[in-house]
């Protein structure tokens, strides 16, 4: 281990997590293809994607648990491969696997073992979290249910107050009451600690109030990477009433994320772009825009995940405010 300063401090100052051209294959299956991720410092980045789209692999590459075939990944400026230990020192990770530890270990021993690896371990905080999440510390880890194991993982991850949190489906397996409690606890933790978060989840509604960045991963490709403000101002749902034999809006080609039929003759289009410009282009073709609606993070994620997009360079596929991360 060579140093305790980032290999690229300029990156670490602005961006918490960066990947450049990350490529990873498992046999013939390409898990990640030339992935360029940028998570600004202090941001809560919600990563969505269908199962098998590469979310877990990406997090494991950031920790160098999985080694990419090519490309560079950094955590707070520390190269995940060259300075892997330092990158991991900055991270707390809730992984996809049920047993993040040793199944034969007593829970209290596992917590003590974890604490001995982490200089910033806060014993009082760990005790409080254990109590709040109702984790039984006298039982064996392997005997915990899926939900209990996940709660223990959250304690192990948060108790050392890491600068970067990598959360892979953090509420998976939790019952509704515990899920609510865990999310409130996570929200409080983020309010009290300056933390950058990369969170992957299928339940975007859970992190609706937390997330300020959205990334959509499809088949190993980061098809969209955008901050929430830009998303709110540039992706809208348009309810359109169109005349018979309407030819559509050719000038919006490449910007339409989704189209479906509404009530009666109405069409609903999800379109990228300035609202006034889109409305102008639609009305110019003889159609009428009845309603324009902002999309929730969840609805936006669903549309962006489910459609195969061809933006032809017109849509903001990689916009992050203040991060200089334009693609």
């Amino acid at each position: 281990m060579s140093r305790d300063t980032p290999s690229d401090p300029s990156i670490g100052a602005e961006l918490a997590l960066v990947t450049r051209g990350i490529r990873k294959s498992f046999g013939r299956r390409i898990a990640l293809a030339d992935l360029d991720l940028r998570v600004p410092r202090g941001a809560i980045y919600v990563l969505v994607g269908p199962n098998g789209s590469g979310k877990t692999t990406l997090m494991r590459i950031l920790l160098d648990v999985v080694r990419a075939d090519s490309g560079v990944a950094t955590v707070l400026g520390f190269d995940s491969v060259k300075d892997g230990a330092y990158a991991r020192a900055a991270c707390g990770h809730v992984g996809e696997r049920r047993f993040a530890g040793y199944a034969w270990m007593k829970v209290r021993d596992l917590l003590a073992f974890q604490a001995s690896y982490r200089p910033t371990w806060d014993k009082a905080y760990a005790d409080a979290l254990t109590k709040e999440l109702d984790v039984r510390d006298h039982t064996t880890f392997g005997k915990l249910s899926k939900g209990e194991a996940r709660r223990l993982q959250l304690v192990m991850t948060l108790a050392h107050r890491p600068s970067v949190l990598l959360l892979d489906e953090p509420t998976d397996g939790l019952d509704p009451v515990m899920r609510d409690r865990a999310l409130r606890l996570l929200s409080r933790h983020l309010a009290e600690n300056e933390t950058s978060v990369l969170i992957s989840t299928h339940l975007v509604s859970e992190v609706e109030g937390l997330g300020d960045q959205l990334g959509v991963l499809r088949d190993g490709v980061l098809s969209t990477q955008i901050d929430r403000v830009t998303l709110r101002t540039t992706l809208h749902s348009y309810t359109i009433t169109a005349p018979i034999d309407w030819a559509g809006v050719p000038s919006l080609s490449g910007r339409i994320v989704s189209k479906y039929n509404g009530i009666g003759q109405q069409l609903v289009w999800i379109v990228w772009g300035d609202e006034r410009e889109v409305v102008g282009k639609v009305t110019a073709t003889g159609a009428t825009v009845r309603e324009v609606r902002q999309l929730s993070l969840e609805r936006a994620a669903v549309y962006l995940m489910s459609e195969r997009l061809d933006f032809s360079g017109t849509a903001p596929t990689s916009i992050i405010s203040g991060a200089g991360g334009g693609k």
Partner: protein
Amino acid sequence: MTASSTRDQSQHRVVRFSRAVRLQLWLLWLSRRPVVLLAAMGAVEVLRRGLELTLNLPITLLVFFVGPIWAFAVWSGEPPSNRSYLWSQPASRTDQSLARVLAGLVWLLAAVVVVLATAVVTGAFAGIWSELKAVGFGFWVNLLVAPTIGYLMLSCLTVVFDRPGWWMLGIILLRSVIWNPESSFEPLGDFNIGHALAGQIGRISDPTKPGSPQWWISWPLWVTVLWLLIWGLARTHPDRLRSWLSEVVGRLSRT
């Protein structure tokens, strides 16, 4: 200095090798595997001859076999494909792997020393003190060297492969075919492969002549070479090794 920057700096602190070794010693102790090892070795000795020191080959064979078996036990339930917990800790992966191997070796030698000490004490009470004094220093050292070499040899496989047992059998068979093809399948034919394996390992540390000048040169050399090999393998990411191996297999199948 703000609380945040203090936290940032302390989070850049990583676990060094010496601390990793201590943690791995503790981890193995918590797993109770050293106790099981000690109990198993003691039980084998008691069942075999009663509480009495034996200075012949069987005890040497016992310590030969203990090393390789312990190499499996040290990584039990934690093949490279399932080491994400260990490897997501703030320590170098190479250090973590070497620390585990070293911690395992420490517990192994501790168990061997306890069994031997018990055997010596009970042997002395049984009235064979003169025999004990008659054997050379090299004999006693060899009882530690033999399991060490067996353990380190198998650790080369357990450090990097998910199925080290299959790799071990493959290497033994390949070695037999290359160096002694006419008799390579004899041990399988007469169900005596265990003895054949013991012979292979035995020849490396030359247990028949412990204490000879060649022996004093050969075993430190073997231990050094094996540690270097483990270090090299531990440095290699399993994903890299896997893609390298599949590339080699692909080239071989094409030719």
